[in-house]
């Protein structure tokens, strides 16, 4: 397990060096996206007003407050990613996103896109919104405000993490490996519990 400190935007080389199980922290720009953001982008065909190429995207519906023209953070946390799996291959292939941050992972087509284009899935600790909020230095912009709290958010972060590389660009999928290992252990566990 190696530890990395990166700065976004990420290069393909930044991402290709990461292996499942490594720990990543980073500084720089982070985009916040959610179910509705991606329905709006992909199903309703709206082009993002800002380039996502090279940047990480996090699955979030943040609590923010608008003071004048400026958005301020209240609480930013991360949601379960699998609901947004179907958008993820295009997010990587079409928009050049280099990292998707969320919890509980994505499926096979997303993993294939990560291999093909050089992207990773970074697992954040679910429930740790207090820490995430602290690591967000500024809400730089909110695009598509009418979709809030599922708009497109541009954050600036400092030492954001720890994030675990759960799906890498070499075809490894940590959640699948953990599931396969659990399945391997199950017959023995059933036997011990007397339910076999």
């Amino acid at each position: 397990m190696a530890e990395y400190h990166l700065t976004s935007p990420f290069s393909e080389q930044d991402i290709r060096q990461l292996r499942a199980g490594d720990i990543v922290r980073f500084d720089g720009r982070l985009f916040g996206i959610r179910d509705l953001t991606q329905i709006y982008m992909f199903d309703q065909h709206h082009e993002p007003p800002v380039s996502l190429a090279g940047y990480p995207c996090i699955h979030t519906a943040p609590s923010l407050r608008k003071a004048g023209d400026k958005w301020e953070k209240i609480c930013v946390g991360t949601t379960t990613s699998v609901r947004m799996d179907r958008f993820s291959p295009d997010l990587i292939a079409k928009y050049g996103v280099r990292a998707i941050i969320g919890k509980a992972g994505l499926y096979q087509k997303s993993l294939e896109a990560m291999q093909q284009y050089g992207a990773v899935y970074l697992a954040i600790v679910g429930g740790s919104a207090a820490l995430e909020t602290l690591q967000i230095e500024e809400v730089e912009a909110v695009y598509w405000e009418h979709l809030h709290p599922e708009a497109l958010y541009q954050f600036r972060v400092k030492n954001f993490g720890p994030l675990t590389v759960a799906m890498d660009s070499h075809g490894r999928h940590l959640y699948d490996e953990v599931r396969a290992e659990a399945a391997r252990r199950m017959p023995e566990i059933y036997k011990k519990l007397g339910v076999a």
Partner: protein
Amino acid sequence: MSDFDYGIVEEAAKQLYIKALCDLPPDVREALKRAYARETKPTARSVYEAIFKTIETADQKHTLICQDTGLPLYKVKIGSRYAWNGYEIKSRLTNGTRRATQEFPFRSSSTHPLLRVNPQTSVGPGLPVFYWDFSEDDTLDILMAPKGSGSENVSKMQMFTPADGVKAVKKFVLDTVVNGGGMPCPPGIIGVGFGGTADLVAKLAKDAILRPVGQRNPDPEIATMEVELEEAINSSGVGAMGLGGDVTTLAVHIETAYTHITQNPVAVNCQCWPARRARAVIHPDGAVEYGY
């Protein structure tokens, strides 16, 4: 009727919701520390380190631990030696819930099931969830729990038959937790309802997650079943956040009720690592004691 000022109940409801979201109970903190001490996988250990930093940040800055403000639930025990007004209690708890949401302010997670319209109040038809009970003393004892959706979404119930036996019940609990993987933000509390009716068994599972971590069922045979299930679940290797590790659950809690001779119901209510709850005991003289 007495001249008790029910504004006290409303204020307590507001404080309880905020306290539950920001201040993790000491038994949960201790259980997480014990889990960390047992954990050998480096990836899982880094998850715990982030968990402890999160708890510390929420303590220092008085912020929400998790952005999921959950659905509000109040378990209320009404003392019988004082003329408490049940209607007032219910409406004040509802008002306090709304005020917490709008005055803190935090996100309301409550929405219409069909229209998916969120009025940003955390309340609405059927919410908060209330469970009422009675005691022999004179206090109003309120336990508040905001229930997050990541864990609630992998919760399940099943009506087995007596012929399926306790085997089916145990296997169901184990399979539900292992199949949930990282989605319920493990390691949390696994609440199990065993017996009763289809509705009661689900309520028992929710009661079970509201016990302090590791407090055993007083029935020794049920307590043994809790330990067996804990060991089985932790042998799976699912680990913290489903990324692999030695600890998948902090504790299995089982609550039981007598059931029908033809029934064998089981329900599993998963609770995430931020196993949030807060308690207030209100006295007839207006004094309020806060705890967990």
